[in-house]
C-alpha cells in the first residue's frame, strides 16, 4: 500500500467539512473510529476534557444521538432547521507517522450557522487525529478550539 500523501490528508479535511455543510451526517459518522471523541473545550488552551467542563466531549453514542435528533419530528429547536457553512484555510499537516498509520492536522476555519433571521460566525481551529484503518483514513479524535470559547453563546446547534 502506498503511504498516505499530504494531499490525501488535506482532501480528507475538506471532504469532512463538506459532509457537515451538506448535512450528510450518516456518512460523516462513518468517518469515525468507534472509540473516537469530538472535543470542544470551554477554556482557552484547556488540557483536560474530564474534570472541568467542556462545551462538547462526545463519544460515538452521543454523536449518533446528536445527529439522529436533528431529524426527529419533535425536535423543536430544529423547526425550522439550522444550516451551517465552513470556510477552511489549507490544513497544516503536523504529524505523519506512516508506520503507525497515524496523522495529525491543524486547520483554521470560519464557521457560520444560521436559523430563521439569526446568523453567527465562529472562528476556530480544528485538530484532527486521523488513522489509516484497512486502507481508509478515519477520524480517531477531533478537537475544535473556538477562538472565543469562553464567551457567552446562544444555541450552537450543528457541528463547528
Amino acid at each position, binding site marked *: 500500500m502506498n503511504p498516505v500523501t499530504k494531499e490525501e490528508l488535506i482532501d480528507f479535511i475538506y471532504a469532512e467539512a463538506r459532509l457537515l455543510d451538506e448535512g450528510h451526517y450518516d456518512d460523516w459518522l462513518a468517518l469515525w473510529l468507534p472509540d473516537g471523541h469530538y472535543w*470542544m473545550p*470551554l*477554556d482557552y488552551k484547556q488540557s483536560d476534557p*474530564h*474534570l*472541568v*467542563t*467542556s*462545551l*462538547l*466531549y462526545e*463519544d460515538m*453514542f*452521543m454523536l*449518533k*444521538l*446528536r445527529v*439522529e*435528533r436533528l431529524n*426527529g419530528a*419533535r*425536535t*423543536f*429547536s*430544529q423547526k425550522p432547521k439550522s444550516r451551517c457553512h465552513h470556510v477552511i484555510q489549507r490544513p497544516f499537516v503536523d504529524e505523519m507517522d506512516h508506520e503507525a498509520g497515524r496523522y495529525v492536522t491543524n486547520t483554521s476555519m470560519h464557521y457560520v450557522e444560521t436559523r430563521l433571521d439569526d446568523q453567527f460566525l465562529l472562528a476556530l481551529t480544528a485538530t484532527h487525529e486521523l488513522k489509516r484503518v484497512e486502507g481508509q483514513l478515519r477520524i480517531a479524535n477531533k478537537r475544535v478550539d473556538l477562538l472565543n470559547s*469562553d*464567551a*457567552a*453563546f*446562544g*444555541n*450552537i*446547534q450543528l457541528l463547528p
Partner: protein
Amino acid sequence: MSERHHPLSAEDIDAMIEGHQVHRDVYTSQRVFDLEMRHLFANTWVFVGHDSQTPNKGDYYTTQIGNQPVIQVRHSDGEIKVLHNRCPHKGTKIAIDREGNTGKFFRCPYHAWSFKTNGCLLAIPLKKGYEGTGLENTDNAKGMKPVGAVKNYRGFIFARLAEDGISFEDFFLDSLSSIDNMVDRSPAGRLEVAGPPLRYMHKCNWKMLVENQTDTCHPMVAHESSAGTAVKIWEELGNPEPRPPAMQIIAPFMSPYEFFENMGIRTWPNGHGHTGVHHSIHSDYSAIPGYFEAMCDAYGEDRAKAILDENRHNTIYFPSIMVKGPIQQLRNFIPLGPDKTLVESYIYRLVDAPDQLLARTAMYNRMINAPTSIVGHDDLEMYERAQEGLMSDGLEWVNLQRLYPVDGEDFSEEAVENGTTERQMRNQFDAWRKFMTATMRHSALGTPEAAE
C-alpha cells in the same frame, strides 16, 4: 397595566400577581425590570461566587448582583469582601478580567487612585490638588463602596446590596439544608470550584429560567427529541450494560408523569424550594468505587447513608440560583434585561472524593447545560418562543394554576406537595412581590418612595 407614563407603584406591582396567574408585564416590561434591579435584587440575598474562586489574599473575581457590577475579593485578613466595581473618582471599572490577583491593593488604571482590598481609599496621586476642596467630606473619598452585607455560608458567598434588610438566616431558613447536603457529600465537608462556568446567553426573562427548574411537566415533552432518541438508540444497540453515560444522564428526562408526581416538591418561605423530595432523576446513578467507604470513614455509616440518601433534584435559592446537591452543580441566572439573561453553570469538586464523581458532574454540565447541549437547545427554544409569544395581546396573563387550591395558599410555612405542582412558581412570585414592594412602600424617610 400596559406601559403607562406615571411611575409604577407598589399597588401596580401587587396587581400583577394573582394567586393562580401573573401578568405578562413581569416578564416583558423594562420598567418592571428596572424596579427588580433596584428593589428585588437589592433587598434579597443574592449569590456572588464560591470562596474557592478567590483562595488567596488579593485574589478577586468579577460578577454582577442583578445589574450591579461587583468584585469578590479575599482581603488581607482572609475574609471575603464584595465591593462595587466602580472607581469612586470617575466611575471606571476597577477590574475587567473575570479573575486575577490584585496584590495588597486595587489601583484604578485611569488616574491611579488606589484602594485596600476592603475598598478603603489608600492613596491619590498629587493629593495636594484636593487640599481645601472638601473632597474628604464626599462619598467619593471613602473608596470603593462595599455591598450592604456579605455572608460566607460553607464556602458560598451571598450578598445583600441594601444596607438594611432581612438577615441571611431569616431569608433562607431551612432551605440551607440543600447547600448543607451538597457540601456534606465531600468527606472533608468542603467543595472547590472546578474550572470556569459554562456561559449561555438566553433571549428571555430571567424568571422563566428560574421557574423552569421546578417545572416537572416539561422534560418528557420538550426533551423528547434528546431523551427519547437516546432510549431509542440504546434499544437498537440491544440495551447494552453498563449503560452509556448519555443514557444515565439524559434518559431519566423521559420518565413518566407519575415519576415526577411522586418525586415531590418542597417549598420554603421567601421563594425557596426544591424538587425531588422522595427520589429524583439523580437517584439511579451508578456507584463510584471507594466513595461510600470514604464517606463512612468521615461520618460513620449511618450519617453517610443519610447524606447520600438525599436525592434532591433542583433547589431554588430565590431569586436567582439553582443548586443540584447530588451532582454539585450551581446555575446562576444573571438578569441583563427584561428579555436577556446570562446563565452561568458552575461545578464543584467534592474534596477527598474520587475523581470519577467530578467527571460525571462535568459530563452532566456539558450534556445538559452547555450552549452546545441537545437538551439545552430545546429549553432555550421554549423560553425564547415564550418571550416572543408574550408580546401577543390575545391574552395578558400567564397561568400557574396546576394543583392550585382555590381558597388560596400560605407560603409562610414549609410544605411538601405533589411533584407536579406549580406551587413553587407561585411561591417565587409571592416572594417577588414581597421583596419588590418592601422598599417601595417604606422608604428610609417613612414616606412612599417614587418608584422611578
